[in-house]
């Protein structure tokens, strides 16, 4: 195992290092480890759901277990898997990409991680303490009020996510300050790598969105534990208030989960196309546009609530508008590939897979902004399909692209390209088998969050296909796991710069030393490493 220098070298015999580390790379690895562990748990929960739904009127899971499983699956994947994975990559990479020795507040960074993890542990402790939350990840009032959810599950949801959210908010402050204040000489804000740009925008989104959710959680806690009536109509409260607060957080949260993954493929695609990103300013600027708009679209989750046609029309318009900067990104990625010399490595396959699948999630997203169509398919499996095309077809494929790309930097070893191709294609087939049929199921009337369905509905065959797809996805994840373990032990040695890349993290060793760089670098363009390798054709910007 000595051949895996994943962590910073420290004196022999020091075993508690991971517990007290303040090194951004180690904390990044901790975050990624947390994300992978919870991704596995959330995946097992998803497999249980799909097993129960494979056939009509099945009795594999009782309804209570099913309701806990889908609730915890959603909460896990969003708060404990995807966000920590993305924050983990940002933690590891942002200082390296901007030529900084660490983040601005290394101790706060450790606090962020441990709060995030403890929040997750608190949530999962509910399984031992009498039952997990069973009201869905958005836990609508009044179902989540004590009158209808008398167990402690919702209380663990509140506590776990409030603590987890505090960690995420502190982490966002840290990353934003780091990006704004710790860039190396020459790295103007118009020269930072796009992954760093997306991390900055994401951090601002977190600062705007998470506090609204924390406030809502506190209000729900007051209702449940102190006899409040914020969301209780019998006491003069309003049930819809929860939805406004939740989705004011919940929709920006979608962009919190997709923008960093977009940042990842914005690094991968240029390197493997052997070209600079097409339209750097437009890719960065469109993210800012998305960030602003994302705070004005929340009520498109509430078209069926009956807010009124005027309100629905306004939120329909803003939701359609946000498709424009999103489309700009897709066009720019494809334009980056045009005229390039594409090396179809596994990282590039996943990046291209992101574009291909995200287009589907984006188009179904626009259809949900069309109020009458939304009223037909909202709260159905159509929405389940849509959100998984965004968060799995988009975010997770982006994270896999980033993993194949940066694993050598973090470990000094390359992941196997052979296993990588198996991983990609089983993921691609399994993912589409699982989620493509769900569009149809939702359109013909299958609501989300049902623990079973009548045989007379005729939904059985497509559900079976979906479950077979989920099993295929599980195989894909096993292949990935084998690849990681094998490559950690005996993967090909990567060297500093295995991809002939463009950005600063590849100019230091793999893995980097504790101080990241022997001396703080100076840059003159957007592709500092390219400039260093090709002094005769340096970038103009």
């Amino acid at each position, binding site marked *: 195992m000595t051949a895996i220098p994943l962590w910073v070298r420290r004196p022999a015999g020091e075993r508690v290092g991971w517990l007290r580390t303040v090194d951004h790379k180690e904390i990044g690895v901790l975050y990624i480890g947390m994300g992978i562990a919870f991704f596995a748990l959330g995946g097992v929960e998803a497999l249980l759901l799909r097993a129960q739904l494979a056939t009509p009127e099945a009795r594999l899971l009782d309804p209570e277990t099913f309701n806990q499983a889908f609730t915890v699956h959603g909460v896990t994947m969003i708060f404990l898997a995807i966000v920590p994975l993305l924050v983990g990559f940002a933690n590891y990479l942002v200082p390296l990409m901007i030529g900084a020795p660490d983040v601005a507040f290394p101790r706060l960074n450790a606090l962020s991680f441990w709060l995030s993890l403890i929040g997750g542990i608190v949530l999962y402790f509910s399984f031992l303490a009498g039952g997990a939350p069973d009201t869905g990840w958005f836990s609508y009032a009044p179902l989540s009020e004590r009158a209808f959810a008398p167990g402690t599950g919702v209380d663990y949801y509140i506590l776990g996510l409030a603590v987890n959210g505090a960690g995420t908010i502190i982490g966002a402050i840290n990353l934003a300050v780091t990006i704004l204040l710790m860039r190396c000489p020459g790295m103007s804000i118009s020269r930072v790598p796009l992954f760093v740009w997306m991390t900055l925008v994401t951090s601002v989104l977190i600062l705007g969105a998470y506090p609204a959710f924390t406030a809502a959680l506190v209000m729900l806690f007051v209702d449940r534990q102190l006899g409040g009536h914020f969301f209780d109509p019998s006491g003069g409260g309003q049930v819809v208030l929860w939805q406004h607060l939740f989705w004011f957080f919940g929709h920006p949260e979608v962009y919190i989960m997709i923008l960093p993954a977009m940042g990842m493929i914005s690094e991968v695609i240029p390197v493997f196309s052997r070209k600079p990103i097409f*339209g750097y300013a437009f890719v960065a600027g469109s993210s800012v546009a998305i960030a602003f708009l994302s705070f004005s679209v929340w009520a498109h989750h509430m078209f069926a609530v009956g807010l009124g046609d005027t309100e629905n029309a306004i939120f329909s318009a803003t939701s359609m508008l946000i498709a424009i900067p999103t489309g700009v990104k897709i066009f720019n990625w494809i334009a980056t590939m045009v005229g390039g010399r594409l090396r179809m490595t596994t990282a590039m396959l996943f990046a291209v897979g992101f574009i291909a699948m995200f287009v589907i999630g984006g188009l179904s997203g626009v259809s949900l902004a069309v109020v009458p169509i939304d009223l*037909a398919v909202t709260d159905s499996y159509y929405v389940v399909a849509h959100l998984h095309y965004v968060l799995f077809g988009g975010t997770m494929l982006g994270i896999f692209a980033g993993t194949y790309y940066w694993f050598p930097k973090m470990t000094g070893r390359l992941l196997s390209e052979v296993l990588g191709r198996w991983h990609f294609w089983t993921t691609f087939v399994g993912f589409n088998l699982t989620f493509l049929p769900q569009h149809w199921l939702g359109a013909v*009337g299958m609501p*989300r969050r049902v623990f079973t369905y009548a045989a007379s509905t005729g939904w059985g065959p497509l559900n079976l296909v979906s479950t077979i797809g989920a099993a295929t996805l599980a195989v894909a994840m096993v292949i990935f796991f084998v690849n990681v373990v094998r490559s950690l032990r005996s993967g090909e040695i990567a060297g500093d710069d295995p991809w002939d890349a463009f950005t600063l993290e590849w100019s230091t060793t793999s893995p980097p030393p504790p101080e990241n760089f022997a001396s703080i670098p100076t840059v003159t363009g957007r592709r500092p490493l390219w400039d260093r390798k090709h002094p005769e054709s340096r970038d103009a910007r």
Partner: protein
Amino acid sequence: MRPPADAIGTLSLIVGVIALLIFIGVEGALVYAIWRYRASRLVAGEAAAFEGNRRLEIAWTAAPALILAVVFVLTLGTMAEINGAGVAPAMRIEAIGHQWWWEFSYGGVKTANELHIPVDTPVDLEVTSADVIHTFWVPELGPKKDMLPGVTNRLRLLARRAGSYDGQCAEFCGIEHAWMRIRVVAESQSDFDAWLRTQTQPRATIETKAEPIFLANICVNCHTIRGTAAAGTAGPDLTHVGARATIGAGVLLNGVGRMRAWLADPQRYKPGALMPSVPLSDADLDALAAYLVSLK
């Protein structure tokens, strides 16, 4: 007016075709770029450092904006249409969502889980909830509408075809969300009128053996059988329960044998439902099941 489902169908078709064309265009460009520019079919070396093109950026910002503007205008039109703008409803029916069944009220005449409407007639459903949020959704009749406690929402229904339409609650509402199914029966005006007349009547069967069993047990705490002393309101009105197609909001088809099984142990078929098992002798169960199914 057109049935809301037809209006949504037309709009979905238009948006679907636009989406399909964009899908083919973007995925086609992606696949072409991969095929055309993969390194293995090109000479070795670096690509030209081509950084962007302002005109292209403007074009692919403006083109989607124009398409979306068209979609938005169509959206506004269809929104007004499915709400029945300008067309007064011929009748209003109240619908109240309960954990986990539906109450329908025709001017005070109550029934449950099965909504009857006259065909070809615009009907407004005024929806609310007795507990948590539910959503009324019958896919073939078009849009859904949330049922919120303390709020009354309106949903326009119009069925062109006589027959039954299945639906179910779309907002997660607790443990038995999956078995909160709706059946809408659309029938000719004369059939509907006859049905409504029957519903207005008290119970059909005056039965001296089984009725006292019902009245002597906790059944009466939650259920009403008009014409008897049973006047509970927490559960479905059973005055004409025998005429309904299903038991337990869709969990079992109606019939004496299944009614008996349901009465003997509702939690077996709908675990978590608010109806408890009532300890009754086999003979009492037989009599009660036959009695309830006879209430047409």
